[in-house]
């Protein structure tokens, strides 16, 4: 009898984030690889929706969520509290041979194997970058989730090491399954990108780019300081484009941009639809991503897939993703970032070399490989 696999697609209920992106790509390829398995996509209720149609790839899957009469946040919390046997996900979904919890925390279940995907442990290493409620939630339930899991998927070798080092998970219980960039992220010539770039008022090959949520962990204040240093030593106008949803704790960043002598050259574009990102990446002189910490780092991977030179941090998982296809910098040092900006902007052959390396490097990461490795984990766990 084919196994019954239930996958938590809850993050897809919100605005598409990196984790939602992971689930969407993974789910569609899994069903393609093993159509004979019984797949069940479900969401732990965070909204009051009774039925949700979720677009995954080109398919539409109905996820049936039994209606709750409690507030959505309360029901979500109840699921995560250890209330077995009083409350378990099987009460609402029926039994499955395996449940894949795709977003750090697993909920109560009576039977079936349990797999948890861990994306990063920034809430633990950098608690100051997270709202206190999230921090307490994770610090309370995350260790329990790790202990209860039959197997853990880490999205990078660095995340695996962090789990081993800080949460003492035996290394044999963790499999690294890296993410990938969507196959729409490819190099784009000036003509193909022109329409999109014109909409945002930027010119092909003449700007520096950051893509990601605007939040403290992305180290945008230092990026700004580095940009100032760069512009002080480089007279030509090279705008700094910041693209991404507004996160949290950003007031001081916006204040600094307001006070900046290069204010007119710093462009904040807000959230960019996925379809327009390849043009933005392809048209940039360089992609700058001086994040303090990452679990994987999708934006640099997307950038190298588009043939864009990348400047990124030498810490956490980023070197693992970009390899030698990027200039690695010390994220705490603005002058290091500025010097890398200057080098890339003034050295055409360096950009060319990084572009070639990046395109080669990007081939290592593929959603099909991600899905296959995930299936291997399912098979191994089910025995």
């Amino acid at each position, binding site marked *: 009898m084919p196994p019954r696999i239930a996958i938590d697609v809850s993050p897809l209920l919100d605005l598409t984030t990196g984790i939602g992106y992971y689930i969407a790509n993974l789910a569609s390829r899994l069903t393609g690889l093993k159509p004979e398995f019984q797949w069940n996509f479900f969401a732990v209720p965070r909204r009051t929706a009774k039925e949700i149609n979720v677009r995954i790839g080109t398919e539409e899957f109905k996820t049936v969520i039994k209606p709750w009469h409690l507030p959505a946040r309360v029901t979500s919390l109840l699921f995560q509290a250890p209330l077995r046997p009083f409350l378990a996900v099987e009460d609402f979904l029926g039994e499955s041979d395996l449940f894949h919890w795709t977003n750090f925390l697993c909920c109560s279940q009576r039977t079936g194997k349990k797999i948890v995907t861990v994306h990063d442990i920034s809430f*633990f*290493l950098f608690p100051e970058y997270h709202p206190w409620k999230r*921090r*307490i939630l994770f610090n*309370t339930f*995350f260790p329990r989730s790790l202990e209860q899991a039959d197997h853990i998927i880490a999205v990078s070798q660095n995340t695996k090491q962090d789990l*081993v*080092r800080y949460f003492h998970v035996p*290394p044999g219980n963790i499999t690294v399954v890296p993410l990938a960039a969507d196959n729409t992220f490819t190099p784009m010539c000036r003509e193909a990108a022109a329409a999109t770039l014109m909409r945002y008022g930027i010119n092909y090959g003449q700007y520096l780019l950051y893509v990601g949520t605007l939040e403290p962990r992305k180290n945008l204040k230092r990026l700004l300081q580095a940009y100032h240093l760069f512009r002080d030593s480089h007279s030509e106008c090279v705008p700094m484009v910041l693209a991404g949803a507004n996160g949290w704790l950003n007031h001081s960043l916006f204040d600094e941009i307001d006070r900046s002598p290069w204010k007119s050259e710093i462009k904040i574009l807000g959230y960019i639809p996925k379809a327009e990102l390849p043009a933005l990446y392809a048209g940039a002189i360089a992609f700058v991503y001086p994040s303090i910490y990452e679990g994987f780092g999708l934006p640099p991977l997307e950038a190298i897939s588009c043939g864009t030179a990348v400047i990124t941090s030498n*810490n956490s998982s980023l070197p693992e993703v970009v390899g030698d296809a990027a200039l690695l910098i010390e994220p705490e040092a603005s002058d290091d970032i500025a010097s890398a900006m200057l080098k890339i902007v003034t050295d055409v052959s360096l950009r060319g070399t990084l572009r070639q390396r990046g395109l080669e490097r990007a081939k290592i990461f593929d959603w099909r490989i991600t899905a296959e490795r995930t299936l291997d984990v399912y098979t191994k766990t089910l025995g």
Partner: protein
Amino acid sequence: MSRIAPKILFLTDSTEHGGAEDHLRVLASEFQKRGHDVHVLLPDVNGMTALVSQLKQQCIKAAPLPLIPIHAGAIRQTRKAVSLNVLRLYRCFRKTKPDLIHFVMSWPTRDSWCGMVAALLLGIPYVVDFQLVPPSIQCPATTRGLLKHLPRILRYVFNRANRLICVSEGNKERLAAFFGIEKHSIDVVHNCIDCARYQYPDFEKVCQLRKEFRLSPDRIAITTVARLNIQKGHRDLIEVAKSVTSTNPEVVFILAGDGELRRELELVTSEAELTKNIIFAGYRNEIPEILAMTDIFFLPTQFEGLPHAVLEAMAAARCVVASRVDGVCEAVTDGETGILVDPGNINHLTEALTSLIRNIQFREEMGQSGRRRVQQFFGIDRMVVNLERIYARVLYA
């Protein structure tokens, strides 16, 4: 006096709260849970306030242990002072009427022997539990009073104890040799700990501690949990820290504990310009959380009984680097659950730490092995079962 759950009086003359005193608390708590009527006598001094409060929280009857006064830094034991103390304890035992007295001894002992004399006078059976038998047992030198006869007194009361207990084979050998005691009258009962407490730390507190000690992901935390005294080898630790940090400046040594050597050690640390790499954390209650944020547990001790700190580190799945002494060798399996080095060998201690600093996999494997070992051999139930057998032999044989 055949009771199914005998009344037990636990007694310690220690005036500082450390591993031995935590051991007493665990004993009192576990035997109370098993239905025994438990009483505890301990000195009413500042250093024991925390322990008294912990006992009260667990509804364990605790009373102050009378101590012979110390005058002008030297023990001045007149016959009158000693007799009064024995009499006080005699009265206390007569009132409490324990079936058995369990003396928990750390070293140097102070007045426990008065309690043993009182117990002998009343015919109450007693066991003496040595948490530490040091390499050389020296009594304070004096020509005054009864104290000059102290070695003979101790030999007398120890030999008349119903059973003697040591925490390691090495300590047993030493005790037998020094006091001329037959080895067959000494039992070895390993210390134990509550493993679950160290397996499930409060991660919110761990986050706060990481912030307090400024532990960014690139820093390696090497922790020592021990009193700051000569026994625990902190002077060697500073020498090792000098060598290790010269090639690994990201390493930070965290010293949890307090003691008489603190000022001296802080001065030496400052002179060696290691204030960024050595942190004196002071006495801490949140040991499970401190161990959870640690990468390597380090104990360069000179001598030991069977240190709780090592067992705690193993229960927290931390790799241990420690001196090859006494009970440490019985807890840690060299190369499997930790690395053991001859005490005082700075070079070897440095090599052991350096080999582990970059090797997360090896550290974690040893840490997991250590946890399994502690769960199997050093759990509370095992210790309590062994002690109950000893009590039964004393009371009913």
